């Protein structure tokens, strides 16, 4: 790798990391909009991306990040409030930077100039146009009272509270407002209805409404005042120059204020409504305490822990090449094998110093056990990052579809093998999309059903009995079994009069081409997906279970192995060589009774198993090792079901079942048909793991092709 390449490599992985951090802080900001530490982190991440992009010469990325930084600076200095829309824009910006980096890494141009311009404009809209030119003077531009030229606009806040009997004086507030509107552009007009009495007390000759107006104008204070010339004396009219606050065309004061106050001022709600709502509103913790779910001490502890972990989590990770870790894991295992071999030898040893040696050995065994455990843990990562990504996906999707969701994640510290995480990310992503797309209803629909408007999506992870469980649950409409059945009928999977159990119906969801939803969304609903989910899980030996209840929601539970390549196998001997058969495909083993074999033609043999006759497949014939056949003697049969076919294989001996780590042959050699990989047994020897699907194919589809001729070896000899 050249130095240049290496620098780029560092840039890509660093940028990736930084964007993740930025995204993380954005999501955190959404729930706690004023968290300075998150704003700081966000700012730092974007800043670093900017500088390193500039360093490696990616001008578009660095320019764009710079613009973003300017916007963030405004948030940091409290001039711009963090709103949901702003977060959405920023999340989009992070995605855009990521896509630019991706493009560059594939050797393309950073961005389409047109797209880049558009994206920049989006950001600029938040900055306000004039802000761009002053961007470099940040962070503390002097606020001057400099005389404004005619072309320069000012902002005025005008509060109008008229006498109740205004109408009797022949004045009409509407005309006054119209007159005012001719002088400039209304930025905001809010009618304050809080004085409005109950209906029976209402008098149509009285004026109850007052107004709060913000106007953008190039006229002077006096000109504005003139509009109210006839009313200003005996009414409460106040005109205030707030241009300072409105530097970028956005009311920067809003940032530091509470939402309720803002709404109140805009006349969207009355004081009573606000107070009422505030009384209802409590912190999640307080609600839990109140409901008796937790004790308040527990709450305090949890909060403290959470804060602590937030601080620590960011500090203590380093990036290491997976290869390095893998070789450590390999060596660790080898050392374990070595130690246990020495241990066995030592147990037989009776010579000098036997006691001391044995004592040391015991220590070594202890250290080794701990070492093994730790080494395996090195590859394990908490699901936290993955869940956070899903949170983001769910949030974005809900936002697009105008749905409201609350996300609950538990078991964030549950650790999984990195490779397993990589393999389940896509399936989980799909499930999350399904939950938002198909599961969660619109707020109106939910309220009609008597549910709270915001749906709940729950991510949960836990470990139980050597397996990891990952659950995704929503409280939406659930899976509509009736339409599943309809689909089944349409596709001809079910016969018209057939009655199927809930489980059997749910199994159809994993069939390719299945989708009950007629509406196609961007992400899910195209009928691809659930079958892919299943395939992906099959690959790592995972299982998925669905639970659903109409209008109560659906849950998908993934049951996963602790490690990616961890497999349960049965060890068998065939002609002196030991092979490993995946346990999940084994339906039973039986003693071989020659008398029960039924022959078909010259070669084919059938054997009774339970109620059926199953073909016998002589694996040693398919797996030709080129070695002289050892004096094998078939003593047992192992019956297998690959999902497509069931058959039996004759073996000499059935040994113990074990958990093994499958290593691929491709690393140093290449793939071999019929072999899934190899593993190192407890005694250090190598054994091959059978690939049943491959074998099945070889036996059932190639059995008529005859024996291949030996050739190629002699080609150089004339």
């Amino acid at each position, binding site marked *: 790798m050249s130095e240049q390449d290496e620098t780029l490599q560092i840039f890509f992985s660093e940028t990736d990391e930084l964007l993740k951090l930025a995204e993380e802080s954005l999501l955190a900001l959404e729930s706690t909009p004023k968290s300075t530490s998150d704003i700081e982190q966000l700012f730092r991440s974007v800043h670093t991306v900017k500088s390193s992009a500039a360093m490696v010469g990616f001008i578009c990325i660095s320019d764009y990040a710079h613009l973003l930084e300017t916007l963030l600076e405004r948030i940091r200095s409290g001039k711009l409030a963090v709103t949901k829309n702003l977060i959405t824009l920023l999340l989009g910006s992070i995605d855009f930077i990521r896509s630019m980096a991706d493009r560059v890494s594939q050797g393309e141009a950073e961005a389409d100039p047109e797209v880049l311009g558009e994206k920049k404009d989006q950001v600029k809209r938040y900055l306000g146009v004039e802000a761009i030119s002053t961007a470099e003077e940040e962070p503390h531009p002097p606020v001057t009272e400099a005389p404004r030229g005619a072309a320069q606009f000012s902002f005025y806040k005008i509060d109008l509270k008229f006498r109740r009997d205004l109408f009797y004086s022949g004045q009409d507030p509407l005309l006054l407002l119209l007159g005012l509107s001719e002088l400039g552009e209304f930025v905001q007009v809010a009618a304050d209805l809080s004085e409005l009495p109950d209906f029976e007390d209402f008098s149509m000759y009285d004026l109850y409404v007052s107004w709060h107006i913000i106007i953008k104008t190039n006229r002077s204070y006096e000109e504005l005042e003139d509009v109210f010339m006839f009313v200003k004396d005996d009414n409460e009219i106040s005109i205030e120059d707030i241009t300072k606050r409105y530097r970028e065309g956005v009311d920067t004061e809003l940032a530091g204020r509470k939402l309720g106050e803002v709404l109140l001022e805009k006349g969207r709600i009355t004081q009573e409504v606000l107070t009422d709502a505030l009384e209802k509103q409590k912190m999640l913790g307080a609600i839990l305490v109140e409901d008796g779910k937790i004790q308040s001490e527990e709450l305090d502890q949890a909060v403290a822990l959470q804060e602590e972990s937030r601080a620590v989590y960011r500090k203590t990770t380093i990036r290491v090449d997976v290869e390095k870790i893998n070789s450590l894991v390999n060596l660790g295992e080898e050392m374990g094998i070595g130690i246990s071999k020495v241990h066995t030898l030592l147990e037989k040893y009776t010579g000098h110093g036997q006691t001391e040696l044995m004592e040391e050995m015991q220590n070594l065994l202890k250290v080794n056990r701990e070492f093994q455990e730790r080494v395996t843990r090195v590859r394990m990562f908490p699901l936290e990052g993955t869940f956070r990504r899903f949170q983001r996906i769910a949030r974005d999707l809900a936002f697009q579809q105008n749905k409201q969701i609350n996300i609950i994640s538990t078991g964030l510290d549950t650790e999984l093998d990195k490779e397993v995480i990589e393999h389940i990310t896509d399936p989980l992503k799909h499930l999350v999309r399904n939950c938002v797309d198909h599961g969660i209803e619109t707020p109106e629909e939910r309220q009609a059903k008597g549910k709270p408007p915001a749906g709940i999506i729950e991510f949960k992870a836990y470990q139980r009995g050597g397996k990891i469980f990952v659950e995704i649950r929503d409280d939406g409409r659930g899976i509509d079994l009736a339409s599943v059945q309809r689909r089944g009928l349409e596709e001809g999977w079910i016969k018209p009069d057939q009655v199927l159990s809930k489980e059997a119906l749910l199994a159809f969801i994993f069939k390719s081409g299945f989708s009950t939803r007629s509406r196609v969304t961007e992400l899910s609903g195209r009928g691809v997906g659930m079958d892919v989910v299943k395939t992906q899980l099959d690959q790592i030996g995972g299982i998925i279970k669905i639970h659903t209840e109409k209008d109560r929601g659906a849950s998908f539970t993934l049951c996963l192995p602790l490690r990616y390549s961890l497999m349960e196998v049965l060890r068998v001997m065939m002609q002196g060589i030991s092979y490993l058969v995946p346990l999940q495909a084994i339906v039973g083993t039986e003693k071989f009774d020659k008398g029960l074999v039924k022959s078909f033609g010259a070669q084919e043999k059938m054997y009774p198993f339970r109620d059926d006759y199953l073909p016998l497949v002589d694996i040693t014939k398919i797996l030709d090792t080129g070695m002289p056949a050892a004096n094998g003697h078939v003593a047992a049969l192992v019956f297998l079901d690959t999902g497509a076919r069931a058959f039996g294989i004759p073996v000499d001996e059935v040994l113990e079942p074990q958990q093994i780590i499958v290593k691929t042959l491709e690393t140093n050699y290449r793939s*071999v*048909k019929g072999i899934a990989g*190899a593993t190192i047994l407890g005694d250090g020897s190598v054994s091959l793991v059978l690939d049943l699907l491959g074998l099945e194919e070889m036996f059932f589809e190639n059995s008529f092709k005859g024996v291949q001729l030996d050739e190629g070896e002699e080609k150089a000899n004339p």
Partner: protein
Amino acid sequence: MSEIKQYVIFSLDEEMYGIEILKIKEVVSYQKITPIPNTKGFVRGIINLRGVIVPVFDLREKFNLPQTTYNRFYIIIVMEISGRVMGVIVDEISDVMELFPEEVQDASNLPPGIRAEYIKAIGKKEDGLTILLDVDRLMSLEELEILDGT
């Protein structure tokens, strides 16, 4: 070839061969090899090298030399070739030899009938003659594929 190169010299059925020392990762004694099904004789099988699965090749088979029963006195030379680790079985390792450029003769002048495709050059030292193998070629993936007819 302008500089001195070191070669590990080994014997195979009384014949001397050399492999560039820089290609060699380590040397281990022969151990039980697990055969891989449906591969031709050249691919002997796989061994466990400290937790890594390593394929082992039989040079006798490749060079049409008489077969022998391998035991623990034979040697496996483990090499790393374009990122992949693999081993070859040899009779014994005799020497590490330094060859000056003038002691290396290219393989263009070989008697007919000798399979030149895996020979990189001939080493001449004192009165001995050593066949320097082109291991990159010998162990290339393409070569393995041709061999298996896949």
